[in-house]
């Protein structure tokens, strides 16, 4: 049986090597999976990992797909470091889309360079508003932010559904559930010609740098670390947990709201009943796979985005059903998460009962 032996200190080498092992193991598992499915494993792995990156357009799409994951993942990671369990980023994203998109529709006839900044600002406010509800209830009434933020996700989705089925319908759209298309003034500038890669990707990269700076170079970052690891010690040091709850939730709300408006004013170009295939939830995984570090989250987001693009490719070039993609993604994430054990532990093959446990009974 496998046995874990704690290292005296985290292995520097494994910090970088463990994802490599994970990818290696995923390849092996993938070979088995694809052979079972009767698909040549080489072709499948090519479709998943190489083909999406083999064209310039593919690379830009990777950026488009990863943008919301980066934005939300980085922000959530900061909250998770402080033990604030916001799992409702999907709802905050939706509110961002509603507020930002709403401003875009309100200023439909306005052709000014201020339309887009106003939308981005409104979206951040919308996301923050939605995140403020769990923050307020948690700090004032001690209500679990897990439940409140999750439940508000459903409420947000239904609210968007109501708006695009009702008051915000495109007046020339035969009452179909979609808003008008945004004009150029309300659309994100494209930063790479003939692609959909928009300025939101640059914003996301900026947020990565900013988050890294906050975590590692500011007092707030230090407070987050302390409170996250030892809440009592933080309290003795005079750090306010309530303040951190507010700050981390509001930051996540703003980032998720931004992600929402980036989706609607960027690649989508209008408000639709469904604007996100669960980015707010996927970002939670991304945050942890990225080990709650901004740069790690960036890399994890790109990998996750790649697996989505790869899944589409595998369906197109190999007729592999989406279900296989789900299983493969699950395996990939399992491996990534599992291999991180190597950073703090050595794996030994030996009897399951360690000397400490020996002789104990329940």
């Amino acid at each position, binding site marked *: 049986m496998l046995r874990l032996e*704690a290292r005296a200190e985290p292995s520097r080498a494994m910090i970088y090597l463990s994802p490599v092992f994970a990818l290696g193991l995923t390849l092996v598992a993938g070979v088995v999976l694809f052979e079972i499915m009767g698909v040549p494993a080489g072709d499948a792995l090519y479709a998943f990992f190489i083909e999406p990156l083999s064209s310039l357009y593919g690379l830009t799409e990777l950026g488009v797909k990863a943008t919301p994951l980066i934005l939300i993942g980085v922000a959530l990671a900061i909250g998770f470091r402080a033990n604030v369990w916001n799992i409702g980023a999907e709802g905050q994203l939706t509110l961002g889309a509603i507020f930002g998109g709403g401003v875009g529709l309100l200023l439909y006839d306005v052709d000014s360079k201020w339309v887009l900044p106003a939308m981005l600002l409104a979206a951040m406010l919308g996301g923050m508003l939605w995140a403020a509800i769990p923050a307020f209830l948690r700090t004032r009434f001690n209500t679990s932010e897990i439940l409140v933020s999750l439940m508000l996700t459903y*409420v947000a989705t239904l609210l968007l559904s109501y708006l695009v089925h009702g008051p915000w319908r495109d007046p020339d759209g035969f009452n179909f559930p979609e808003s008008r298309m945004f004009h150029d003034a309300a659309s994100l500038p494209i930063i790479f010609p003939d692609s959909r890669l928009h300025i939101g990707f640059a914003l996301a990269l900026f947020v990565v740098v900013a988050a890294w700076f906050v975590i590692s170079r500011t007092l707030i970052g230090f407070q987050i670390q302390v409170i996250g690891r030892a809440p009592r010690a933080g309290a003795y040091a005079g750090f306010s947990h309530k303040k951190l709850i507010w700050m981390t939730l509001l930051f996540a709300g703003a980032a998720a709201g931004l992600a929402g408006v980036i989706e609607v004013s960027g690649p989508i170009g209008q408000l639709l009943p469904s604007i996100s295939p669960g980015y707010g939830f996927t970002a939670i995984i991304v945050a942890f796979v990225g080990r709650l570090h901004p740069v790690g989250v960036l890399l994890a987001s790109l990998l996750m985005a790649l697996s989505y693009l790869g899944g589409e490719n595998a369906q197109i070039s190999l007729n592999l059903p989406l279900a296989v993609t*789900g299983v493969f993604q*699950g395996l990939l994430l399992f491996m990534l998460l599992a291999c991180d054990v190597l950073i703090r532990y050595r794996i030994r093959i030996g009897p399951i009962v360690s000397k400490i446990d020996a002789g104990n009974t*329940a």
Partner: protein
Amino acid sequence: MNFDLYLPTLLTIITAATPLVFAAMGELVTEKSGVLNLGVEGMMLTGAVTGFAAVVVTDSAILGCLAAMAAGMLTALIFAFLVLGLQASQVATGLALTLFGIGLSALLGQDMVGIAYAGLPKLQLPIVSDLPVLGPLLFHHDALVYLSFVLPAAVAWFLYRTRAGLILRAVGDSHDAAHAIGYPVIAIRYMATLFGGAMSGLAGAYLSLSYSTMWVENMSAGRGWIALALVVFATWRPWRVMFGAYLFGGITILQLYAQAFGIAVPSQFMTMLPYLATIVVLVVISRDESRIRQNAPACIGKPFHPSA
């Protein structure tokens, strides 16, 4: 609402709440041991498709339920190995398990789409089934519903009245102390996680064998997430889980009835009601911080290694 409507409405609420009771009760035991498994949705779906396939193949409802539980346990075992054996992040692994379970169930169920099944047999109990009002309300169900009635009592009894339950709670509250006393922390967490998997699998079986007797992809439609929320809602107490499941199921059903009455409110707002009500009730009952502290497992989500 006229009186004739109470009974059928309540019956509908019972069937809507039952899968939530199973999944949430299993997750409650898992969490009480200090493990947070967010993969309920994935385990439910795997259980649903496995249970359905087993019934189609063997034509035995009992085997179907057992197979669903076994499937739930197997998926929970993957999770347990990763988070307990390899110290992987519980939150992330649970979410990955959801992705995995949705895919796996779709893959397993490819040949199950379009097959019909009559549903679990309703069991009539002697005497009590013939009681007026209470008979039809409580005693005209299939075996899984009866099981969901007694499950909270069983779990409450186990957690608070047995030595094993005491140990499980000790492990969840302070794994270091429990380890120092000599309890096998990891083994206990494995068992609690497997129980959670079995119950999620059973919830899935209820979906595909009783609630809507068929297999279609993604048929749990987010109920695993609601079950997770209900454990928090219940502040980790078994009877409150039951209350939460009936509250949530009840408002979901009542808004459908209200719509059928022709209430002139956009249906999206009606559909929001159960989510909003859950928040409001939780705010009311969670104001007393000390009581939550008493019940919340202090070590939830934290990794444990004996040498740490």
